[in-house]
């Protein structure tokens, strides 16, 4: 990591939140999205990451260069904190409102169908029902992008293609479907 990068990193840390946390914590947290996939795929070892961080001048709270173990441990803390914050945010969204289902309730739309695999060419030319005139309400069919942790609460990276949802590791596409039905259920509950 060059001096210029270091300067940018340190400048970026100025005035940040998480008072009382080490620079290392702040840096790992600020770069979570970029680091998590690489750590999950074992592209970077803790030792190498610790060396790069030390070379960049980041210190732990005692002012020492971080060891591989402390980077791993603090990474776990970052993951735990982010997971807790995400769970708290989700819980705030589950307020219930007393009523019946809304006339305007509209579920999210699933992914396009998978092609048929074993009986000749797929049937294709028919457009999806989503595109048809089957009572569609314009502007209701965009799917929400959900971000899932790619490490477990202890900070251990999950297997490739897996994410952490509902307290367990699962395939990303499974988590996406479960998150969608959870969201739709909450939407129905709002009008129940």
């Amino acid at each position, binding site marked *: 990591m060059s001096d210029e990068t270091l300067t940018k990193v340190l400048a970026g840390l100025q005035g940040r939140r998480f008072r009382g946390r080490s620079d290392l914590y702040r840096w790992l947290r600020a770069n979570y999205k970029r680091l998590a996939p690489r750590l999950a795929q074992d592209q970077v070892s803790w030792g190498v990451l610790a060396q790069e961080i030390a070379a960049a001048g980041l210190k732990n709270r005692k002012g020492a260069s971080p060891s591989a173990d402390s980077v791993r441990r603090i990474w776990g803390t970052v993951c735990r904190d982010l997971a807790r914050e995400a769970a708290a945010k989700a819980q705030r969204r589950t307020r219930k409102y007393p009523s019946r289902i809304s006339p305007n309730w509209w*579920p999210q739309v699933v992914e396009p169908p998978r092609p048929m695999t074993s009986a000749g060419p797929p049937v294709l030319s028919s457009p999806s029902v989503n595109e048809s005139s089957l009572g569609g309400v314009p502007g209701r069919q965009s799917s929400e992008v959900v971000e899932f942790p790619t490490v477990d609460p202890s900070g251990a990276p999950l297997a490739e293609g897996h994410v952490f949802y509902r307290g367990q590791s699962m395939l990303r596409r*499974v988590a996406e479907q479960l998150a969608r039905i959870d969201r739709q259920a909450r939407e129905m509950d709002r009008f129940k």
Partner: protein
Amino acid sequence: MDLPSMETMMLDPASGLTAGTADEVRIATIVDGRGRAGKTTVANVLVQFCRERGANLRVWNADRQNETHSLSVFHRDAVRPPSDDPDDKGAWLEESFDAQVRERFDSVLDLAGGDPLVRLLARETELVATLEQHRVRLVLWQVLGPDVADLDYLKLSMEAGLFAPATLLVLNAGLVRSKRSIEAVFAEVTGHKVFVDAVAQGAQVVWFPGLVCMKGVAERGLTFAEAKRGIVKPGQQRFVLFDQTRVEIFWEKHIPAFFAQIPADWLPRMADRAARSRGGIQ
């Protein structure tokens, strides 16, 4: 109506039904689940929705135990097995699939709660793969209520090889009558290993919307199109105003939204889709 007499219904271009072409993939929908999960209601909605849109659909009603709310009440052309004897039902089902392969139509099969009829055939004949070879795609609609025991039938279907490749897990929100949240009531089911495994294997999950006055519609033997217009049969009590509105919202908004969640190639072919594929609708 027995099978031979149905041949006269086939693919008449003048009838307005979707004839399709001989090599087009047809859809065999099987509606399965535990008793009282809402299979017949879901099947009835499927048939009415598709037929309103010109689907060439045959209804197979294998649920001989349910007389009052059976599909035959709503669809007079529904075909039933000659008896409740397992051998009779098995032979009837084989003949029905055979007719579908030869005559090229879509079908909807409503099973009695927990009926092993299809699972037995699936185990014996590799039903899904066999039908696919003949360009008939089997789509399993597994109807689930909030009871974990409902997953037993999903597990059995998976074990019987009925599960892949097209399976829809239909969560029946209409079964939640308490003030508890739908999310909480279904949490045990949607968090269960069997459910999560099914999704991991490619099942799609959809919520089937509830209708407060569903019982009133079913007991009058009305279609949803009739009920939303306030039509009742002679001797029946009329619908109260707001129930009529509820049916209209259900049928015009919630049900189209429900179907919009289902992959198009898992649904029976409908006239507007056929017209679109020919460029007839812009």
